[in-house]
């Protein structure tokens, strides 16, 4: 069975193995033992906090475990807040209008404006699934388990959350936006800039990036075309978030132009439509056919989330097998949270 659970201190080796597979540009999971250990420490500390009244520096990193092999095959995370230690930068794609009634000319010129508007917001991040597990709705489970956690513990997150999506670059890692814009100001290469940023070292952005809005219409076409566009590999992840209610609100990454998607927590489908019910343990009817459901427990430190297929829509109670209950760390009569895996499944 595939189970989402908080990362723990025994996962370092597995996490390192995963990090090795992520490849260039996946800066939130770099194959460096010290960095990963620090990340695990932060996550363990965050999941251990029993009482949190408002989000601060928690970093909820979860893993997807294949219980049949005991392997860790994916990660997903939520940062309670970003930008409170080091500034968090984005470009806002705005509009400046230049019009002359006299000449009958009207130009709405798009501009990129450097900002820190996401300061203090929660971010969903660090989504990675091993290639040979990209089937059986594992990707959806991994991504959406986070919304179950947020639905259960909304006080741990901000009203709005966002996700940064990887932008367009070619097979050599060359980003058209970087080549036309960032390169002129940074005197370092994209990979180096990206790495510095991921290490939380962002002072150089303030120092080197132009303060003034950049006119998008002056950029070469190949750079304009990638603003707000995701990398081919990221298109499915984007679609998934959009189906959950996330929207592109004209914020893009300052380096590669990848879009940030945002949503109010309460408007996310999985949050809005999920509900608590009581768990029974026994022989579920209609299992293994029909709709898929995300099922999670209502615990922080021992948070768990799994996927169950059932042809009978759950009511105020739901029957689980003993194995399912064990994997969810629950007993009969415990509260569980359920929602359909997707709105059209």
């Amino acid at each position, binding site marked *: 069975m595939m189970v989402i659970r908080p990362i723990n201190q025994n996962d370092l080796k597995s996490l390192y193995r995963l990090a090795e597979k992520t490849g260039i540009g996946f800066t939130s999971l770099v194959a460096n033992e010290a960095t990963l250990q620090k990340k695990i420490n932060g996550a363990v500390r965050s999941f251990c906090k029993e009482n949190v009244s408002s989000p601060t520096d928690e970093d909820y990193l979860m893993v997807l475990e294949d219980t049949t092999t005991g392997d860790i095959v994916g990660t997903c995370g939520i940062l309670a807040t970003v930008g409170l230690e080091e500034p968090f930068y984005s470009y806002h794609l705005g509009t400046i209008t230049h019009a002359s009634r006299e000449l009958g000319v009207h130009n709405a010129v798009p501009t990129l404006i450097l900002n820190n508007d996401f300061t203090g917001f929660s971010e969903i991040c660090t989504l990675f699934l091993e290639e040979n597990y990209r089937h059986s709705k594992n990707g959806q489970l991994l991504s959406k388990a986070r919304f179950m956690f947020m639905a259960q513990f909304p006080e741990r997150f901000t009203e709005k959350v966002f996700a940064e999506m990887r932008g367009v670059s070619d097979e050599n890692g060359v980003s058209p936006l970087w080549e036309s814009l960032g390169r002129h100001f940074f005197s370092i290469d994209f990979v180096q800039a990206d790495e510095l940023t991921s290490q939380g070292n962002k002072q150089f952005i303030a120092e080197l990036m132009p303060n003034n809005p950049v006119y998008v219409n*002056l950029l070469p076409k190949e750079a304009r075309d990638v603003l707000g566009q995701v990398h081919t590999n990221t298109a499915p992840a984007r679609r998934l978030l959009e189906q959950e209610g996330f929207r592109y609100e004209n914020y893009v990454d300052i380096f590669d132009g990848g879009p940030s998607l945002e949503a109010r927590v309460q408007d996310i489908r999985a949050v809005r439509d999920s509900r608590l019910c009581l768990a029974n343990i026994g022989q579920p009817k209609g299992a293994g056919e029909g709709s898929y459901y995300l099922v999670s427990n209502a615990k922080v430190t021992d948070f768990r989330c799994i996927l169950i297929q059932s042809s009978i829509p759950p009511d105020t109670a739901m029957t689980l097998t003993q194995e399912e209950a064990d994997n969810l760390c629950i007993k009969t009569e415990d509260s569980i949270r359920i929602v359909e895996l997707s709105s059209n499944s």
Partner: protein
Amino acid sequence: MYLVRTVDFADLPALERLAQQAGIGITNFPANRERLNDKIASSRRSLQTDVIQPGDESYLFVLVDTSKDEIVGCCGIDAIVGNDAPFYSYRIDEVVHASPQLQIHNRIPALFLCHDYSGTSRLIALVVDKAHQNATAMALLSKARLLFIARYPERFTKRLFVELRGESDKHGYSAFWDALGKHFFSMDFQKADYLSAISNKHFIADLMPRYPIYVPTLPEAAQDAIGVIHEKSSQSADILLEEGFEFRGYVDIFDAGPTIEARTENLNTIANQKSGKALTLTEISKGAMHIVSAGHLESFRVTAAPAEPQAAGLGLEQATQERLAVSPGHRIQWATL
């Protein structure tokens, strides 16, 4: 021989012919009969006005080939630009972005829209018929204006500037315009250039980019054109640079042609001009080439001729005296050419 004199309404057809020859990129001198007529009228009116300090006067001079009594060139001065609508330029400033930690220190040139030349006198539109683009005619026409300024300093500001025509090809294509202005004006260079000459300039404020343009983000061809003088203007530019005009980092907003400036008093012709009596040249010495002016305001005229400075004034040939309509004893003004 050549004579420079103030313009008259009868010169309109000749001016129109010159303007058509001049072509694109000389925004101060549009091939539009009505506007040219306005310019002549403004010059006449300005010369008839009592001026205590510079205002919206403008002065237009023509170059006459006296052998055929034909107009073969023209030039002008605006007493002040930017009075009715601001006069826009790009100032090239370096923006410093440095990261001590990364040991990066970038100086990035950027174009800032400004109106730093608003309120300043401007030399405009030096246009000479192709057949007459020789050194004497060019220098005479260019420097005649400076003698006028020296004679009537109260009519001009202490600082003078000239816009030199920027790079564009024979079809009027400007790489700089193509990379920048086009995106904001939604029209081609010729049209913008023409509109800027014939209309008030509010549309520039309405349409121009309000934020600085970082030069390295422009295409290379556009970067290369910044501050470069159009081939056709290099001769007149050289005359001005020799006079003491300097480039101070300002360029035209349309074609990025350089703007050059000077304090009036520092220009060679103005610093070195003298005035005194017209005398007759002794027959032995022919004298060096001078530019010599005579007459007051409307009758102001300038010619180039051999002449010899003497204690009491300047010795002129009989023909020169006739060209200038002066007799020995008349007050004249001169400088070496």
